[in-house]
């Protein structure tokens, strides 16, 4: 039986901003088709890891590869493989929903862009608001549109930075089901989040970063949600490593 290809492979990944070390020799391998949830306090290095994987950051030490291709800042081919959802929605607020998708579809030279845009509007339940200006949308709708924007070019790896922040229960569930479909269709997801329940809806692995290092990395099949939540809260509020917290 052949092994699944590796979507993201980081070995000894270190990133420094001046005297601050955001990532310390991180080793992380994400197989294709996996959904990995990154947890950690603010400033633990989650966003930096996503930025390196998304080739948004120029220099780093160690190695980072996406589908066997070394991550290089500004690599055009690399960017075709990856979709990114940041904390900001990265949408043009004065453009309509459909025009935002048209813009990014054309920018990525998506074949038959108009058909792809229509497909995404239907898939993300945005058809009724297609002509609405993004500024008028709710946070949940904006986040759905942001996800549609990120997958407009059919990326193989999706990087999400705290996608559930500011969403109500209904919008969070809707986002979860969209991510589930993305993974079911063969996509790979790496997301940073604090929302244990939502992340465990889809995540096949849970990883905790503390001060730039991975202190916990386990399959979600091996641990139930309440136990992990309890351990993670300990990390957040007391700074105790998961091992000490009883996971």
């Amino acid at each position: 039986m052949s092994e699944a290809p590796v979507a993201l492979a980081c070995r000894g990944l270190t990133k420094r901003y001046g005297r601050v070390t955001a990532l310390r020799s991180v080793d992380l391998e994400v197989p294709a088709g996996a959904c990995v949830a990154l947890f950690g306090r603010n400033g633990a290095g989650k966003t930096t890891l996503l930025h390196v994987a998304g080739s948004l950051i120029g220099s780093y030490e160690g190695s980072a590869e996406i589908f066997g291709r070394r991550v290089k800042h500004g690599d055009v081919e690399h960017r075709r493989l990856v979709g990114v959802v940041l904390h900001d929605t990265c949408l043009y607020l004065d453009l309509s929903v459909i025009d935002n998708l048209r813009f990014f579809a054309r920018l990525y030279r998506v074949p038959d862009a108009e058909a792809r845009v229509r497909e995404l509007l239907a898939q993300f339940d945005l058809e009724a608001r297609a002509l609405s200006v993004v500024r008028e949308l709710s946070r949940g709708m904006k986040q759905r549109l942001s996800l549609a924007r990120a997958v407009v070019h059919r990326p193989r790896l999706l990087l999400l930075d705290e996608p559930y922040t500011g969403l109500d229960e209904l919008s969070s569930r809707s986002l979860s089901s969209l991510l589930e479909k993305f993974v079911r269709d063969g996509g790979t997801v790496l997301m940073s989040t604090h929302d244990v329940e939502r992340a465990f809806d889809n995540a096949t692995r849970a990883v905790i970063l503390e001060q730039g290092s991975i202190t916990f990395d386990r399959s979600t099949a091996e641990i139930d949600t309440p136990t992990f939540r309890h351990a993670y809260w300990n990390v957040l509020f007391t700074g105790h490593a998961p091992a000490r917290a009883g996971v």
Partner: protein
Amino acid sequence: MLHTAGVVLWKDLRIEMRTRDAIGAAFVFSLLVMVIFNFALDANTPEMRRLAAGFFWVAFAFSGTLALNRSFALEKESGAGRALVFAPVDAAGVYLGKFLANVLFLLVTQIIVLPAFIVFFDTGVVADRWWALVLSFVLGATGFAAVGTLFSAVASNTRMRELLLPLLFLPVTVPALIAAVETTSFALGATDSASFWFRLLVVYDVVFITVSLLIFEYALEE
């Protein structure tokens, strides 16, 4: 590069058609400046008519700054510009698209303001020099947008972008503004020749468009 430029131009035109922010603000500001000049300086004198082109371009320089400020402000809003950074596109294409959009906005502003300028300053274009006025507007707006688009991107990454943009780019545009004043004066019949100034505008435009295309990548990155 041309594909990216076309897509970015389409996007900026769609936003402007919806909001009319850039052209609207530039038009109102130009009009206000001309009204102030008109009443403060008694513009209906022969001497003032000779200086009219200067007043036009002063009004344009300040109102154009408003339009250029808007150019990258909308990229910062909600982080939309970051989506451009992680898309597989070349920065030169993004620059070209934004630049062309800005040239169009500035030209439209000039065309809208022109009738008010003619009325306020009781001036007119010499019959066989309309071509000079058109060329002056096109070359002047092109130079202004070439530098303004680059500096707008630089200033947008700073905390005080509204203040920083005019401080950064107005000094650089001084040669283009002087040349534009001279060529417009020629079109209005205030001077007899402007061939040197036309040549200067062409050189200025070519140099700054080329330089901006080459270095825009660094301006786009945060």
